[in-house]
């Protein structure tokens, strides 16, 4: 029965519907995989097996009576960023260490309404601030992949490291994740999984712990492009409880998977050829271009001249929004409160200093600084104007092309405890160099595993689409997936 954990979401949902196995059996298989693997991989920070068994039993009844919904009986992992009613939700921060939401996030509610089963809450960087999962209060996640001939523990990426590792290690069929600067796509690339960040506003942010509200967007991490389309379909919805959620009809995302890309124009931005990027990544990019040409697409050179300014812009906008969003953690109404303190300001300061980790505090301070009197125009307003330029770059580029192809990350997975990155925050931030632009512009971006590097570690390609054109992104991604034939799995050590 353990083979059931290796199924794709699509195959599992089909198998359940045709009664080849029950949701109870499938759920037990995943529970077994989590019990065996999680002590080493640390992908789950909380398991909800009783709830999973109850949901599976309910799904089996529905399947028996012919009332199966889109995700009926499918066991999923949920990033700890999503508020789950009655189930501890911490965003992997000590400050929310015992928070039990009395409400459900819209995205997860949508999944339960479609019959999904919750296996537990997945590890992440604290408040989604990080690229290596090392800022989590619950400890880092270990990437299921290791370099050939090496025993070094690698990062699964971040912030959705738990989501990516759980999918790669067959500890769930698929997982929810979220992406503010690359937090779906970078971990997907590091673990040989697929991840898509849809257009800003496709999914409701209600009940997602806020990091940077104008950039945060929900999305799935899955084993295949088709699975991403399926899960994305259920995650997205218009929601009156999120005023930025878009009130427009959802296309049938799965119908775009496997569609011909003949005649589509693929933009290749020169500015994404960075100095110091491994030659293997350039080579993989060239290979991706070739695959799309072979599928009948036309390759167009484009220019996104403000690309190099995207990360610095992000590191003003995101911390500014974060410093405001995280002001709510004051130790008064919920979350950690420092003990044995009497004064109000002392309570605020000590509760927050004890509750927030180092990286979160650093970003709150950057955000506070760039919003403070005297610096607001020089930093914050300036960044908002450069953000406009970055968005205009894409608008101009999309006059000449239909989608854009780039590498997903500037390297493959690196070691946990990388001292250079720990010593210099900017080195860590550079992980998002290829992904952050789409968050600033609000565009859909998808990472697809495309090959292994010389160390035997996965590398991904990124497909960027026009606003609301996830469909074409999925079509391109499925061509890349087919051509790459990426079926490698990490060798099991856990």
């Amino acid at each position: 029965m353990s083979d059931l954990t290796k199924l794709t979401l699509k195959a599992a949902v089909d198998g359940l519907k045709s009664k080849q196995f029950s949701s109870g059996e499938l759920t037990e298989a995943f529970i077994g995989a989590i019990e065996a693997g999680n002590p080493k991989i640390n992908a789950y920070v909380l398991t909800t097996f009783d709830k999973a068994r109850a949901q599976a039993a309910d799904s089996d009844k529905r399947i028996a009576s012919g009332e199966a919904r889109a995700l009926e009986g499918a066991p999923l992992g949920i990033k700890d960023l999503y508020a789950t009613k009655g189930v501890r939700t911490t965003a992997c921060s000590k400050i929310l260490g015992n928070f039990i939401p009395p409400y459900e996030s819209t995205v997860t509610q949508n999944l339960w309404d479609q019959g999904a089963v919750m296996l537990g809450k997945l590890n992440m960087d604290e408040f989604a601030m990080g690229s290596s999962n090392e800022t989590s209060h619950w400890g880092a996640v270990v990437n299921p992949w290791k370099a050939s001939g090496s025993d070094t523990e690698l990062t699964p990426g971040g912030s959705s490291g738990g989501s990516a590792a759980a999918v790669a290690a067959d500890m769930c069929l698929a997982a929810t994740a979220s992406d503010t600067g690359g937090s779906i796509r970078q971990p997907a690339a590091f673990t040989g999984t697929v991840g898509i960040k849809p257009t800003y506003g496709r999914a409701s942010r209600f009940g997602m712990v806020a990091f940077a509200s104008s950039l945060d967007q929900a999305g799935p991490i899955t084993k295949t492009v088709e699975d991403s389309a399926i899960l994305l379909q259920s995650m997205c919805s218009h929601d009156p409880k999120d005023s930025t959620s878009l009130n427009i009809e959802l296309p049938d995302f799965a119908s775009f998977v496997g569609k011909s890309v003949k005649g589509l124009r693929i933009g290749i931005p020169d500015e994404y050829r960075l100095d110091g990027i491994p030659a293997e990544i350039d080579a993989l990019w060239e290979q991706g271009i070739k695959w799309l040409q072979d599928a009948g697409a036309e390759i167009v050179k484009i220019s996104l001249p403000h690309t190099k300014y995207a990360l610095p812009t992000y590191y003003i906008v995101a911390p500014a929004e974060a410093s405001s969003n995280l002001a709510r953690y004051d130790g008064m109404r919920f979350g950690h409160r420092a003990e044995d303190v009497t004064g109000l300001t002392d309570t605020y300061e000590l509760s927050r200093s004890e509750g927030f980790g180092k990286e979160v505090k650093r970003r709150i301070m950057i955000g506070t600084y760039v919003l403070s009197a005297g610096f607001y125009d020089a930093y914050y307003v300036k960044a908002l104007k450069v953000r406009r330029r970055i968005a205009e770059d894409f608008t101009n580029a999309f006059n000449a092309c239909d989608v854009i192809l780039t590498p997903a990350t500037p390297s493959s997975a690196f070691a946990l405890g990388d001292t250079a990155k720990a010593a210099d925050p900017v080195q860590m931030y550079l992980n998002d160099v290829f992904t952050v632009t789409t968050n600033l512009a609000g565009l859909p971006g998808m990472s697809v595993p495309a090959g292994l590097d010389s160390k035997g570690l996965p590398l991904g390609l990124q497909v960027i689409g026009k606003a609301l054109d996830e469909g074409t992104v999925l079509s391109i991604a499925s061509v890349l997936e087919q051509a790459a034939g990426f079926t490698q799995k990490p060798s099991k050590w856990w």
Partner: protein
Amino acid sequence: MAIDVATVKKVASLSRLREADERLESLAGELNGILGWIEQLNEVDVSDAQPMTSAVEVAAPLRDDVVSDGNKVADVVSNAPKTVDGFFVVPKVVE
């Protein structure tokens, strides 16, 4: 414009954070590193650019002015560090 230890202290206090004195020096270094890297934005000509505040241009939606939620005192205080009779207990604010 380098950030010194005094500025770090001020920003920490504006952020309602308290950093140990021995951490201030290294924080100043880290913040200077990040802000120095951000300085490159000054190369960009933004003279005619409008600040971009949202990723997708949509008008803020209006809803009917009706009560749609409420009467959830127990839920609201369920995660509070200290409560009495449905109220939050907070440190003394006025001396």
